[in-house]
């Protein structure tokens, strides 16, 4: 069986700068796979490539064996990939629960006719969509905000809301870009628990993170980037003992 996500010889250049260079790795279904590295190592660029926001300069990404080269982000979503952003992307012109309901966009069948006349079938779908969204908000721990305007929510709650929105799409793989950034110790601990819960449900998790403690605790495998290149790849144990990684992180 081939890996869920397979990356081969990936290259992304911005002008003369190679943000990502010759990166290859594979993520098996069901894993928690983390990408770490110093600032500017190319982690977020890598995520943007995988999620179709950037187009690779060279190389190939396969999702479930299918090349993603010609696919738009929304088509990747149809194939079971969803993500969050380091710079949160929340629709501030909507309420919290509407943001999560937006995540179920692909699960809802609606046509213009039933929408304009607000037919009962549409209302039933909306009702169950809302219920599912409320469950997810409870699951990620922001259940008390249901009808709060997103613009009135705290940073920590919005981070969770973004995860709920991604989960609402029922993805096979969820990409979390620095979910712990800006969170305090307690919040990070509960985030760790949340990521574990997501993984336990069978969703593959890809994580970009700075928080070493968090990453080492929950990852099945890690990819270490430095200056856009792969420095090391392996289990947390292997990474911890890798001399190159130690050198890059401690300065050798």
């Amino acid at each position, binding site marked *: 069986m081939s890996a869920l996500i397979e990356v081969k010889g990936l290259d992304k250049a911005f002008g003369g700068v190679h943000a990502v260079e010759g990166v290859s790795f594979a993520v098996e279904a069901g894993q928690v796979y983390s990408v770490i590295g110093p600032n500017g190592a190319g982690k977020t660029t890598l995520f943007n490539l995988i999620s179709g926001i950037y187009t690779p300069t060279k190389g190939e990404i396969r999702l479930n064996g299918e090349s993603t080269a010609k696919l*738009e982000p*929304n088509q990747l979503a149809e194939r079971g990939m*969803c993500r969050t952003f380091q710079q949160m992307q*929340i*629709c501030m012109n*909507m309420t919290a629960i509407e943001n999560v309901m*937006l995540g179920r966009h692909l699960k809802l069948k*609606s046509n*213009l006719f039933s929408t304009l006349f607000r037919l009962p079938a549409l209302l039933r779908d909306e009702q169950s969509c809302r219920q599912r969204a409320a469950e997810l908000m409870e699951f990620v721990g922001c259940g008390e905000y249901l009808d709060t305007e997103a613009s009135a929510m705290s940073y920590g709650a919005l981070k969770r809301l973004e995860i709920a929105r991604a989960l609402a799409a029922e993805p096979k793989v969820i990409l979390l870009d620095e979910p712990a950034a800006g969170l305090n110790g307690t919040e990070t601990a509960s985030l760790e628990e949340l990521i574990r819960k997501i993984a336990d449900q069978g969703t593959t998790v890809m994580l970009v993170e700075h928080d070493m403690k968090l990453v080492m605790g929950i990852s099945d495998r890690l990819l270490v980037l430095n200056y856009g290149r792969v420095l090391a790849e392996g289990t947390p144990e292997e990474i911890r003992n890798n001399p190159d990684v130690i050198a890059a992180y401690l300065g050798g």
Partner: protein
Amino acid sequence: MVNRFMQSRLRDLVFLAIILFALPAFLSNPFHYDLATQMAIIAATVVGLNLLVGFAGQISLGHAGFFGLGAYFSGIMTGSYGWSSIPALLVGAVLVGIIAWIVGRPILRLKGHYLSMATLAVGFIIAIIINNETWLTGGPDGMPVPSLDIFGWELSPFGSYSLFGMELDGNQAWYLFAALVLLVAVWFAQNLIDSPIGRALRSVHGSEVAARVVGVNTASYKSLVFVISAIYASLMGGLYAHFQGFITPAVAAFDFSIVLITMVVLGGMGSTMGVILGAVVLKLLPQVLADFQELETVMFGLILMLTMIFMPKGLLPTIQMAVSKRMKKKAGGQA
């Protein structure tokens, strides 16, 4: 409880219906009815434009073009080719929808000023065609349009009608008809906004990249809302032509596009009731400013500027916020 009712969509619709049907008590002559009817038709156009501008966050500076196309299609087909009004309105709307889709696909890829420019150009092209194709449109002199007939029943400002035993003159009947049209336009718009399609549209405004990663095909949704708002404009243009009985290229002109967008911004982008208020205020303003006639356009510009500076959310949302703040303060004081 009160809050829940305040937020319900039905409240807006009921509120609007009460105002619309109570208004005749304050209208004393045909001129008032004429103005009120125009307001209702323009308001419905702006409700459609607001779907594009206020909810999906895309701009159109050429919307009068679609209004004008609808007006002229209805005028030409009923006047020169003997079509009945309803088929002319519907076929016109479909054609304008198709034109909007063809034009919208490429230009909605643009953002910000570039999109403004492109829509501006679309409006100009339509206005120029209407001005120049004299054989068809009468050119700058305009053309007469027959009165509205609804499957053989004729609605004309010069007719006289009876409704539930009430005697109505043509202007009054037209006003009631336009009020009904506005209510339906608002109802459709509200249904659209509060639906999966509406959420997708609003997400294009809120965060396009977020919308895309959860599977929203943002390009098609932008086209969809562009087409819907163009269809609103086309239908209202057609009705306007029948109501006025005479149209000139002014209905498709740049100035009118600016008036429409000003109504949206002034009333409150993304607030259906707000943009109706915007339409009413800007329609009334020329009456109030009649003395400064040459400065009317300057006034429009000035009002738009001042609103942007002091009430960036628009008239109605600002008023609503002030009221709810005061109510909260009162509630806090009592507790």
